[in-house]
């Protein structure tokens, strides 16, 4: 055989990595032999191509073989990859190094753990809200929800109604499956043991649409969901099964008293199944079986005015979203021409559920994303911090490194070794971060996503993988610069210089990193300050209702089959009992409350020779309603017991309507026709301040108030509002009991503070969160920056002991030395602060939409943050400065 050709370097390298060390050469030899043969047969170029293909074909079996060897014969020589040997020695070397300086190790670990932990926590939240598809749902990407609206106003109308759903289901061409869903509060049991369950009314097509299979039993069939009255069957959630039935198999077939019917449990959903929402309801009922519980009454299948059903559908493959949506709107228009959402100009949008879910959480999603970005800033600070410490350490180890270089260690190996150290630190930090993530996740969920009622574990595979990835990335990132810098050491000059402290000063990189930390901390603290100010502004808002003083009690009598006529008697009795309870300042009955549902009508104001009409909201209330809310009476009088069914018809109006209708004239005694011009005139007896209707931020709408005694038939909804003297939270149970016992066999009475109305919670949440979380991140950043300043300055003092000694010997006073040392730290932080302030001012516009009545350039916040940063820096410099002031002059000078 002729002299064999050489296998190219890349192929050798690949084989070295892929094959066990013992075999790599043999394989390369065999390849080389064949290569020479191929060259003879086909010529040089073709042979090279052949070789490349041969190597690529060979890698899979070789790698498989390698894995088998490692798994089966781990002790065989060369079983582990060749590079593992070096990695192992690097690792044990790094371990020894870290153990030798526990202070350094602990600081870095803490920085990494906090930085990575904050990020993993926020990732968990963002993942939950935006990224992760719902469990048990087959191909969630194909599922859309139909939302109506116009392109100009956005698509805000998420609910539809039964005629539209049925028509699209029967005639829609773009969807392979379609389901309708409505959530409702289901009264469960009666009297003192009554409770409300979270229910979901779903069409029988719901479970097949999602492609989920029950954990036990079965889901509804089409024959059980028949309009107008379906079978009383229920599917319960896994959690409810555990809670109510202690997980007993007898649950299947058991009956539950829901509303006015007995429902039979036929199936149990899988444990982590939450449908298309973030949390599972307690139970699912056939759409048609919830009939008696719906406020729509018997017309629920035919009425097309009220919207209450959400429509979900699975797209047929190949059908574009737009086409399916347009088709659906054509059908809807046909089926419900009088519905407001089918009016000309409105269209459906088929929105993929993944984006719809996130959007519905609106503010929470925005804030979560913002916080995730901010947690990244915390991580950057942590990285800067660690990089700084590593740099300082690298400088301290210059001599050691120079010696190793002189002894022939290659720079590549040296970098690898130093990188191993930072990777090891990051990995350990990541491990601690997992603990932080667990607790942080629990806490963040309680703060951020309380309404969602998430039950799945905070730490799942995705969060863990994220943590691991971040740890590795951070390890590589922070280690690289210091490692490269250290490996650039000048061998001879460093060794010649003798001591470890060969007069090297803090590097520019260190100063820069410190300034960056200060800048980032500044930005975070500023953010926290701005959110805090927004929150203060919101708390100072005058809403016409004391949100944290007033309780609202509701009781769904209709759901248990009590007619509206009975409701008034029950509520009158309940009001009596509530008002007599200790701790209640005042109480009233109303048909709605601020942030509750809205009811509209028309008000005709008699002018001199014409009638002007105003669209207005209305509420039907008993006397003392305004006193209970805390809304002030601006003119005239409140309703009282003299306003009865047969006395003069009276109304009250809010300030805004009074101004619009009568300008500066006195509205008291004016005549208004409410509802229709043919109705008798009602006299305005009082004007009250504007009370918020739907949003804490809105400009109030027109409002008229009617006395309950004169307007019983206007609206059958009834609520109780209660003003607490003190401790409203504790009063809730008293009120509930008083309502519950107003008559025998009543359903659950739900009592909560206005502050906890979903709307209010939703609207104030971003500010509360922004202030709390950014405050926490800011404090964290500040702590890290302080540690950074302390570390660098005290290192500096150590380096300059001799210089300081000389200065003091030459007559410098302790105060001079202190200011010298502190000046260093303060200067760097000041530079960072100015940069951070500049960045914050320049980018303030980005955060503006998230703030309320607060400028992103708020001077008070800016000043406070600057002062905090300077004070903390001063404190961090104090200890090293003290050490510098007490330098032993003799020892310092003699040193060397």
């Amino acid at each position, binding site marked *: 055989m002729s*002299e*064999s050709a050489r296998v190219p370097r890349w192929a050798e390298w690949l084989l070295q990595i892929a*094959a066990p060390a013992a*075999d790599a050469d*043999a*394989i390369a*030899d*065999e*390849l080389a*032999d*064949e290569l020479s043969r191929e060259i003879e047969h086909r010529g040089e170029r073709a042979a090279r191509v052949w070789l490349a293909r*041969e190597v690529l*074909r*060979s*890698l*899979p*079996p*070789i790698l*498989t*073989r390698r894995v*088998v*060897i490692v798994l*089966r*014969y781990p002790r065989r020589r060369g079983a582990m990859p060749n590079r593992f040997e070096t990695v192992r020695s690097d690792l044990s070397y790094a371990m020894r190094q870290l153990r030798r300086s526990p202070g350094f190790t602990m600081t870095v670990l803490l920085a990494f753990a906090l930085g990575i932990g904050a990020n993993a926590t926020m990732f968990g939240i963002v993942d939950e809200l935006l990224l992760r598809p719902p469990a048990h749902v087959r191909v969630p990407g194909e599922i859309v929800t139909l939302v109506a609206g116009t392109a100009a106003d956005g698509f805000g109308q998420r609910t539809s109604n039964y005629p539209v759903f049925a028509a699209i289901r029967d005639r829609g061409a773009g969807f392979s499956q379609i389901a309708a869903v409505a959530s409702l509060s289901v009264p469960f049991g009666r009297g003192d043991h009554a409770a409300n369950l979270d229910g979901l009314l779903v069409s029988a097509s719901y479970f097949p649409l999602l492609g989920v299979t029950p954990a036990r039993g079965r889901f509804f069939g089409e024959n059980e969901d028949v309009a107008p009255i379906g079978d009383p069957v229920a599917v319960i959630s896994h959690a409810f099964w555990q809670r109510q039935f202690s997980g007993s198999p007898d649950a299947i077939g058991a009956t539950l008293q829901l509303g006015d019917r007995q429902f039979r449990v036929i199936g149990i959903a899988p444990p982590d199944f939450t449908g298309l929402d973030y949390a599972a309801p307690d139970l699912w009922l056939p759409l048609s079986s919830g009939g008696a519980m719906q406020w729509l009454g018997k017309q629920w299948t035919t009425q097309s005015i009220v919207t209450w059903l959400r429509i979900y559908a699975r797209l047929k493959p190949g059908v574009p979203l737009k086409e399916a949506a347009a088709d659906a709107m054509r059908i809807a228009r046909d089926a419900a021409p009088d519905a407001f959402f089918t009016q000309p100009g409105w269209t459906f949008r088929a929105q993929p559920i993944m984006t719809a879910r996130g959007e519905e959480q609106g503010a929470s999603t925005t804030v979560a994303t913002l916080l995730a970005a901010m947690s990244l800033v915390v991580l950057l600070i942590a990285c800067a911090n660690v990089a700084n410490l590593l740099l300082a350490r690298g400088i301290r180890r210059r001599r050691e490194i120079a010696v190793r270089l002189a002894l022939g260690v290659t720079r590549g190996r040296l970098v690898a070794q130093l990188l191993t150290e930072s990777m090891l630190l990051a990995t350990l930090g990541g491990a601690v971060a997992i603990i932080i993530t667990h607790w942080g996740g629990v806490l963040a969920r309680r703060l951020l996503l309380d309404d969602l009622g998430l039950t799945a574990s905070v730490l799942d595979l995705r969060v863990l993988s994220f943590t691991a990835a971040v740890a590795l990335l951070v390890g590589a990132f922070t280690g690289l610069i210091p490692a490269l810098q250290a490996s650039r050491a000048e061998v001879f000059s460093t060794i010649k210089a003798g001591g470890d402290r060969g007069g090297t000063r803090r590097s520019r990189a260190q100063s820069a990193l410190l300034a960056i930390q200060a800048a980032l901390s500044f930005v975070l603290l500023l953010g926290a300050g701005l959110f805090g100010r927004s929150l203060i502004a919101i708390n100072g808002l005058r809403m016409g209702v004391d949100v944290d003083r007033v309780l609202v009690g509701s009781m769904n009598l209709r759901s248990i089959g009590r007619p509206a006529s009975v409701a008034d008697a029950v509520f009158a009795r309940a009001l009596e009992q509530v008002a007599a309870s200790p701790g209640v300042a005042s109480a009233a009955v109303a048909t709605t409350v601020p942030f509750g549902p809205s009811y509209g009508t028309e008000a005709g104001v008699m002018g001199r020779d014409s009638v002007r009409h105003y669209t207005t909201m209305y509420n039907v209330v008993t006397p003392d309603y305004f006193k209970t809310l805390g809304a002030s009476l601006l003119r005239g009088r409140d309703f009282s017991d003299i306003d009865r069914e047969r006395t003069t018809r009276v109304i009250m109006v809010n300030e805004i309507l009074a101004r619009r209708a009568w300008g500066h004239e006195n509205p008291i005694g004016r005549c208004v026709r409410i509802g229709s011009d043919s109705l008798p005139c009602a006299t305005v007896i009082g004007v009250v301040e504007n009370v918020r209707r739907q949003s804490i931020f809105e400009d109030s709408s027109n409002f008229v108030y009617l006395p309950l005694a004169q307007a019983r038939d206007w609206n059958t909804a009834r609520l109780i509002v209660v003003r607490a003297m003190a401790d409203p939270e504790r009063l809730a149970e008293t009120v509930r009991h008083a309502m519950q016992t107003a008559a025998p066999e009543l359903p659950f009475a739900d009592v909560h503070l206005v502050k906890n109305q979903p709307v209010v919670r939703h609207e104030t949440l971003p500010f509360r969160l922004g202030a709390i979380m950014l405050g926490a991140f800011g404090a964290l950043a500040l702590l890290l920056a302080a540690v950074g300043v302390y570390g660098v300055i005290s290192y500096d003092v150590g380096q300059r002991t001799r210089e300081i000694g000389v200065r003091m010997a030459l007559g410098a006073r302790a105060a001079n030395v202190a200011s010298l040392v502190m000046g260093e730290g303060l200067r760097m932080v000041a530079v960072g602060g100015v940069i951070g302030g500049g960045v914050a001012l320049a980018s303030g516009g980005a955060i503006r939409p998230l703030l309320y009545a607060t400028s992103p350039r708020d001077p008070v916040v800016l000043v406070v943050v600057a002062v905090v940063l300077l004070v903390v820096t001063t404190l961090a410099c104090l200890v090293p400065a003290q050490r510098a002031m007490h330098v032993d002059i003799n020892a310092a000078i003699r040193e060397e």
Partner: protein
Amino acid sequence: MIKRDLGELELYTLLAIQHLGGQALGVEIRDEIQRRTGRRVSVGSGYATLGRLGDKGLVRFTVLPSEPRRGGRARRSAQLTPAGVRAIRESAASLRRMLGNLAADTLP
């Protein structure tokens, strides 16, 4: 003792070694398989197959002295063990039994 999990390529490899006199280099084995079956075995799978046969105790390896020339390398040759020979015999017997009276021309 016969390993039941003898793959096709493993059996071919054992047979090739037998044809080559009970001892052969990797490249010779792969050439032999190609000559008889037309199947081209890559260096990598040839190596992996021999490795597996080694694990099963059906072949053992000997290192041949390096060639007496510049750059000559030591080569590893595979040799059938008694278990390997038995494995060939039993596999062949199984195959014969399975074929039974399905003469070559009656096969589909």
